[in-house]
């Protein structure tokens, strides 16, 4: 746009709802106080009240010079979020702060950035949940995760719709750790277990990955027993059937981190449980009471 160009703000409903891909609805009023759960990559001049949950230092090299940065997770009553501090603001895990002039970048979902101009005021944080309240994780819908491009620590509940190929016994390259496909060079192959699922909660869907530990729990067999089982059955179909039998159309609760990219939303589970047995009549009664009230 040149110097003779005239720019006027307009109100246009269609434009406001326009889906422009990676950066979705990142408009925020400068200095606006936001909930952590509503942070979107691309926001700037963000003010939040938060509690630092954990901090660790990382040594990196910036333009050839070594630099120490600080990273970890922060929480407020709405949820949690990763943060990266590019300066030493002397942050202490467990303490609560009023943060002004932070901005949001993206790494597995929104990553709150504290720079040189970010201002910290220590607060008593009585209205914020205590450190131990974050132990059970924060629940999201898959649509929320997709919109915020992931999360570093999320809990989701839904149903398994399909078990994808590449589940069960797989072989990884020793050096790169990549799963090998049929026809790849098997010289450096090491066996591993994992499950790839289509996981869905009605608001969205994702590809969920269950690691070896969870897979062993689901199957009730360890890696050696799986290798034996596959040998006995002349192939991995029988193992696949066991996985499908255990998981397809079952309700699960997953906890882990999520990432959203051009391949869709991926969820890497660190724990996986059958959805807690709920007392349906009781929940239904509470629901009804809420409707009438």
């Amino acid at each position: 746009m040149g110097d003779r160009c005239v720019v006027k703000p307009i109100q246009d409903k269609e434009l406001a709802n326009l889906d422009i891909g990676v950066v979705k609805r990142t408009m925020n009023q400068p200095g606006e106080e936001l909930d952590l759960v509503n942070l979107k990559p691309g926001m700037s001049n963000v003010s939040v009240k938060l509690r630092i949950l954990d901090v660790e230092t990382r040594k990196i090299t910036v333009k050839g010079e070594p630099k120490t940065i600080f990273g970890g997770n922060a929480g407020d009553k709405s949820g949690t979020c990763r943060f990266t501090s590019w300066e030493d603001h002397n942050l202490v895990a467990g303490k609560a702060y009023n943060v002004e002039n932070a901005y949001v970048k993206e790494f597995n979902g929104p990553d709150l950035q504290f720079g040189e101009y970010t201002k910290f005021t220590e607060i008593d944080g009585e209205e914020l949940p205590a450190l131990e309240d974050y132990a059970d994780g924060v629940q999201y819908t898959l649509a929320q995760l997709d919109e915020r491009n992931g999360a570093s620590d999320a809990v989701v509940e839904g149903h398994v719709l399909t078990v994808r190929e590449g589940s069960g016994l797989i072989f990884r390259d020793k050096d790169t750790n990549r799963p090998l496909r049929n026809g790849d060079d098997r010289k450096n192959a090491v066996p591993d277990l994992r499950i790839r699922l289509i996981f869905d909660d009605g608001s969205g869907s994702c590809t969920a990955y269950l690691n070896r530990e969870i897979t062993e729990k689901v199957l009730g067999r360890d890696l050696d027993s799986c290798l034996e089982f596959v040998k006995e059955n002349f192939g991995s179909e029988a193992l696949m059937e066991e996985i499908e039998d255990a998981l397809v159309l079952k309700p699960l609760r997953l906890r882990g981190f999520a990432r959203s990219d051009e391949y869709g939303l991926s969820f890497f589970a660190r724990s996986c449980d059958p959805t807690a047995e709920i007392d349906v009549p009781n929940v239904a009664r509470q629901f009804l009471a809420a409707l009438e009230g």
Partner: protein
Amino acid sequence: MAQRREPGVLVLAKELSAAIEKHVENREYSPTYLISEIGAKLSRVLIGGVLDQIENRGSEDDPFYTARVIDPNGDFYYLQAGQYNPEGAVALSKLEIGVPVLCVGKARARTPEDSERTYVSVQPENIRAVSMDEVNHWAIKACDHLMRRINANKAFEKDEDALKRANLTIREMNGLELSKGFYPTVAVENYAALLYDCLTKLAGGDLPETKNFTGEFEPASAAPETEIPEVKETVEETPEKGDSNDNETKVMTLIKEMDEGDGIYYDDLGSAALKDGVDGPMLDEILDSLSDQGLIFQPRFNHYKEA
């Protein structure tokens, strides 16, 4: 934005079967969505209930399965799987009547040339037998999603704050706007009643149940709400012998009276029979019995005609 897989929307049978308007988006690879009266945008659906009927209307080599599933509220889903959906057909063929199931599949609407009515069916991608607890757990979630849609629908263009609080996804908002265009006059109360009924049943149906079965049936205008909880209760029971003959006659009369040539549609028969005091499971039994006696037959799937 990259293409996303369609989420499997949890929807009760009553809402699904009224979702007769189709919508195709102006983009590559858009599925044909069905838009429900209160704004669910449906392509893939996750449904649950008890498998009630299953029939192979094709042959051994070229199977075409039709099946019916009763949701926890007592309404019907219709399932179809033929040669273009072998996985679904195989999964269906493994099931036995009477088992609780969960099913994921694509919703399809079809209007036969000689008919005014649009039939919504589900083409299963996967279906399996589960426990009743899992169906009830699904139903609670389905009710939760239903309530979200009802609240958003009520707030639309009336209460901006409430709509904002509902925190709809782009997809949900789009479905809601489309539904307002397709169905300008919808009684949202019907869906609020559906929600209430279904939750009452899931809660055990204590309250309305006691008023029921005093021997006399209330006039048809009396709230059907009090009558429906009985539906599920009697699924496994045989109705008393005394009025079963009586009811057979009633149903037979209805079939004769309402037939306009090619048989009477099951749902129409069901609502008419309810007014005569014959509920869903009782009707099914009567229809089976009449078919066995050779008094009626099905000229088309789910249409009944006097033999």
